[in-house]
């Protein structure tokens, strides 16, 4: 095999047909498959978001148990929190009370985190980041399907999950403080 033959081989290869028509029309089967109702293009994203929420929930629980010291955590709940007032209609706006509670907790979060051990703090921050990524993904999906009830419900649950983690951080820090006091 020499260079001349190799060149001939490659130039012949480039002349091989790249367009070959199938013997039968493949479109009808494709059309049937894509017309089937069921999994929308967001389904897998929703499944992923749900998995994230489950993961975060489980992880939060583990973190909580790892830090919790038999004592029930002090209740840390800003007054007048009304989670149910978050409203999701065609415009999927959060209720003002929900937004206030969220802002309130978020503003306290940094201070609360400093009271946790580095490991627990890293766990909480990682969980919150996962939740916020999920919120961004769901909001992106809602921009294209604003009236998707499943997405709206998932967004609401995800916001609740975020609030729960932020609230638990408050509980954790109270627990740590009372343990240190003893």
């Amino acid at each position, binding site marked *: 095999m020499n260079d001349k033959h*190799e060149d001939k*081989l490659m130039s*012949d*290869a480039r*002349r091989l047909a790249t367009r070959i*028509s*199938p013997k039968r029309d*493949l479109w009808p089967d494709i059309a049937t498959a894509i017309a089937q109702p069921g999994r929308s293009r967001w389904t897998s994203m929703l499944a992923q978001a749900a998995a994230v929420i489950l993961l975060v929930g489980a992880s939060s629980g583990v973190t909580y148990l790892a830090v919790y010291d038999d004592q029930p955590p002090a209740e840390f709940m800003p007054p007048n929190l009304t989670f149910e007032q978050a409203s999701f209609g065609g415009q999927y706006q959060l209720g003002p009370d929900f937004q206030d509670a969220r802002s309130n907790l978020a503003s306290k979060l940094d201070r609360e985190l400093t009271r946790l051990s580095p490991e627990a703090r890293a766990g909480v921050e990682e969980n919150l980041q996962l939740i916020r990524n999920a919120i961004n993904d769901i909001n992106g999906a809602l921009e294209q399907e604003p009236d998707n009830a499943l997405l709206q419900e998932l967004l609401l649950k995800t916001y609740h999950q975020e609030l729960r983690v932020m609230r638990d951080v408050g509980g954790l820090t109270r627990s740590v403080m009372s343990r240190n006091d003893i």
Partner: protein
Amino acid sequence: MAALLAMEPRDYSPAMVSPTQQATTDEATWIARAQRSDAQAFESLYRAHVDRVYGLCLRMTGNVSEAEDCTQEAFIQVWNKLAKFRGDSSFATWLHRIAVNAVLGRMRKARREQDRIQLATEASISPASIGDTGNLRDLSDAVDRLPQGARHVFVLYAVYGYSHEEAGNMLGIATGTSKAQLHRARRLLAQQLKQEGFEA
């Protein structure tokens, strides 16, 4: 169209659109509409690309039935993933990548390589050589008898003109591995064609 071709080259009026530009514009429109779940636009995309996708699947699998299944699977996946297409690469390249994945996934899942070799041996003319004539048919048959790894690289690099980097990305192998597989393919092809008295 005749009126467009008759125009002076320096006439840059908005009506002067080359067939290539027109095809690109059409394709962009079809993609945008298909992204909004317009099945008719998607059919237009299918009609424009099916021969090239089927050809790629046929050359990679060497089996008509497998190639048909892979082609259908690829277009269904394209429909499901179309919202994610942002035009970072050309639509054809993106489509080919999905088709290659469909072929690889199918081969891995069903382990049909053995069946494929059997079918290729039984066939008097390789299915992939349907579109070729003369000596090219011998080459096509020889390509079809290559081992899977060498055949896939040869088809993507030598037949479809992708770079080693692109072929490696599509096949999930390193660029160096793609080069090594091409070298192997060329050596095996030269041997095969020499044995059959075909002057490569």
